[in-house]
């Protein structure tokens, strides 16, 4: 009995940390409607700054708590800086842009942290005065855990007072419930948003600083925590601080007991809970439908088939690609294979997002499923390359069929979050299921058949499969099915009003995109000879989003251009020391300066030259 009570206390202490990390994210979303990927980065900075302050000052109790507060304030100011310089410009952009922009920030902050603190992990000091364990019913409980159990509800109470007893707080709540209303109240919106963002960042910093005595401070903190924080916010209802608290308690306590039964469950459990909650309550426990994003500012133009000239250009390009093994160096062949894989992946994601209007934050799940299915086929069934390759799209498609059934029930940010959850569940499974998937060590020895061993020969395998996949999806985009998806994206009401079962079409579209991503995954697996859990990690999904965004979401050619640009930049930049920083800056520049991507830029240029469009529009 006493053991279970101790377990409960551990769960509650974890709940407090989880709540501190998540509540700021929820406040930021509630007011600005931005899903802030960089929230984990704020948390990480908080931990680093607190570590440095506490160890430098070394003032005992005062130094510790002073360091915690100081770190939170620093992070709050960093948040303010970020809001004023970057986010303020993209409040009206579609959520995809905001997500990718804040992911750019994640990369920038990672490298800045690396530059300042170096690559090593730091073990923080215990909190002075709270560094022992007390016995409760005979079980040792760290005093610091007890302190955290108190701090969480205290912060919740402080936020409650702030929101209900100050004019500012009342405005924040009004903004959370009804965005249009703030304009009507004549409130200075910019100021309100900045302050809310600063508060959110402050809380993230506080969460990070308070973790210092509990776990090591390292460069992986940001992404490892952000997935959990998303889950808490979505379960609680986006924008609801109370919801975040309840969700944090729910997850942490469940987790504290579930690990007793299944030690491996902790990576997967939060996402399972989230999936269940979203199906029962699509807007989370305390969430309301609320006003989401409006439609993208610029309406998309109708699709046109390629002109003769464009088709000719494409044919020349494909022919050059087909002949490239004759003259290109070995290294270039590897790069071209990467390019083909990336393009197919981006095209499948674009089919889902651009054509189907379903923004996925977890498309890598199906890419990874394909890669793992092939690798497992080789490892356990001893399959040859071609049979293993057939498994890939089937696995990707089946995975998408399963998760898609849940996902298409939601829309907008909630759909995106559920796709993320699905991807994290799969990632957790591959990571934890050591005997089957090899866990972190991955699966090695996934080599192509002997006739396809050389880079040149394998290039042709990739060429045929990837171009085939791209052709298929382009074809489908122009078919009645593709038009139905596009129509549903434009107006779900109209689709229903002309007899279309939109959910079912979206479900099938999701499955098709997953199958094609799975195809990209198998081509990838055999080109590298191995697969690792990072083929289905968040960063892989974000790579896809960046490609689609780079290319421009409004054009079928977009993901192709975007993947090309992405792979070239990546190839060049990753050789540099602080490549994440550079990459992050590139992402921000694209989001801020060329929101319609490379394809949009190209068509604007064309408009300028051909003067087919009116002067005014072309110049914009």
């Amino acid at each position: 009995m006493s053991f279970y009570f101790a377990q409960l206390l551990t769960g509650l202490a974890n709940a407090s940390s989880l709540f501190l990390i998540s509540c700021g994210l929820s406040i930021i979303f509630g007011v600005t409607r931005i899903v802030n990927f960089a929230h984990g980065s704020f948390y990480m900075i908080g931990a680093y700054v607190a570590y440095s302050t506490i160890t430098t000052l070394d003032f005992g109790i005062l130094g510790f708590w002073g360091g915690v507060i100081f770190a939170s304030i620093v992070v709050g100011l960093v948040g303010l800086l970020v809001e004023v310089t970057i986010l303020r410009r993209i409040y009206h952009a579609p959520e995809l842009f905001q997500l990718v922009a804040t992911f750019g920030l994640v990369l920038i902050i990672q490298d800045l942290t690396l530059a300042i603190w170096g690559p090593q992990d730091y073990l923080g000091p215990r909190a002075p005065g709270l560094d022992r364990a007390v016995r409760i019913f005979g079980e040792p409980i760290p005093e610091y855990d007890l302190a955290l159990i108190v701090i969480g509800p205290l912060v919740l109470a402080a936020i409650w007072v702030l929101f209900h007893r100050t004019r500012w707080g009342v405005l924040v709540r009004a903004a959370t419930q009804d965005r249009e209303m703030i304009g009507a109240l004549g409130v200075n919106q910019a100021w309100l948003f900045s302050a809310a963002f600063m508060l959110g960042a402050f809380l993230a910093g506080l969460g990070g600083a308070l973790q210092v005595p509990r776990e090591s401070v390292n460069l992986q903190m940001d992404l490892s925590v952000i997935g959990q924080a998303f889950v808490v916010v979505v379960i609680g209802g986006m924008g609801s601080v109370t919801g975040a608290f309840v969700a944090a308690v729910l997850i942490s306590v469940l987790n504290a007991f579930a690990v007793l039964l299944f030690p491996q469950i902790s990576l997967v459990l939060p996402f399972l809970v989230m999936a269940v909650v979203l199906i029962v309550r699509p807007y989370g426990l305390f969430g309301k439908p609320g006003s989401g994003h409006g439609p993208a500012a610029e309406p998309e133009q109708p699709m046109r088939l390629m002109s003769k000239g464009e088709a000719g250009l494409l044919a020349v390009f494909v022919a050059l690609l087909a002949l490239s093994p004759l003259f290109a160096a070995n290294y270039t062949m590897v790069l071209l294979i990467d390019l083909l894989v990336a393009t197919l992946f981006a095209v499948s994601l674009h089919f889902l997002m651009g054509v189907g209007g379903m923004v996925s934050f977890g498309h890598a799940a199906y890419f990874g499923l394909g890669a793992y299915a092939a690798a497992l086929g080789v490892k356990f069934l001893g399959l040859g390359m071609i049979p293993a390759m057939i498994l890939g799209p089937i696995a990707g498609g089946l995975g998408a069929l399963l998760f898609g059934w849940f996902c298409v029930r939601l829309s907008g940010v909630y759909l995106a979050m559920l796709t993320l959850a699905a991807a994290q569940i799969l990632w957790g499974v591959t990571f934890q299921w050591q005997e089957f998937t090899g866990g972190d060590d991955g699966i090695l020895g996934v080599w192509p058949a002997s006739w396809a061993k050389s880079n040149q020969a394998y290039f042709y395998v990739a060429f045929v499969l990837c171009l085939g996949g791209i052709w298929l999806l382009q074809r489908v985009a122009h078919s009645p099915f593709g038009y139905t998806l596009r129509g549903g994206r434009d107006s779900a009401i109209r689709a229903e009003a002309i007899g279309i079962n939109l959910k079912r079409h979206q479900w099938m579209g999701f499955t098709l995109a997953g199958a094609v991503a799975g195809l990209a995954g198998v081509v990838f697996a055999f080109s590298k000879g191995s697969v690792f859990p990072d083929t289905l990690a968040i960063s892989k999904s974000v790579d896809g989003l960046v490609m689609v965004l780079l290319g421009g979401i409004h054009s079928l050619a977009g993901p192709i251009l975007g993947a090309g640009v992405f792979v070239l930049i990546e190839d060049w930049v990753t050789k540099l020391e602080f490549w994440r920083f550079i990459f992050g800056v590139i992402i921000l520049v694209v989001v801020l300066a060329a929101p319609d991507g490379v394809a949009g830029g190209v068509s604007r240029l064309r408009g300028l030259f051909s003067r087919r469009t009116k002067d005014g529009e072309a110049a914009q």
Partner: protein
Amino acid sequence: MNVLEVRGLSKSFGGIQAVSDVSFDLGEGEFLALIGPNGAGKTTCFNMLNGYLKPDRGSVKLGGRELIGVKPRRIWRMGVGRTFQITETFRSMTVLENVQMALISHHRETGNLFSRATRMHVDKAMSLLETISMADYANRACSELAYGDLKRLELAVALAHEPKLLLMDEPTAGMAPSERIALMALTAEIVARERLSVIFTEHDMDVVFAHSHRIIVLNRGELIAEGTGDEIRANPHVQEVYLGGGTVFENTGATADA
């Protein structure tokens, strides 16, 4: 034989009784106007007839079949077309493609993965556009259309599956007065030719009196009057409601703002 029989339809939103106990019939080939001041419950009524809203109470029968609880898309397949007060079109498509989509859905071809959607049902779609005199606009992007043109496009889309009942929510809102008369004259002609039955809501009393066979009046969710144009014009209760609403309402033909 009635096409539609509505009995005891009621709906409240929180504290607001948007529609209460509304009953009426619609005969075959009839052109019925549903009027009432802003917020009277007209759109709410339409949404219940279409399956977009589930009423608290009441029944709607189409040719004897109950519609309550049936999904909007099924009701459409049963031969009910509708246009929206706030237009709903596929913005990223051309005018022609919007009509083609309705035809593709009608022929149950939305699962087709390999044909080119833009090459399907072109003739039929063009002839529908011709009936509403929009053939010249066929290849224009929907996002470039004026509001009145979007309304007309919705009519063409609603006619695509040859419905037997057409529900039009403020079909002429956003149009110039001459355009309104022309569009409704055209609709009346189509209705007569195809033997359609129509329910429409409208704020422009000229349009209402010129084209409806019968009028029902809603006020605060309640049906307060029913009858021909002359009967409605003479009804003191209706006059009171409309005067209260600030609408000029004269015997010589009326003007009203939408």
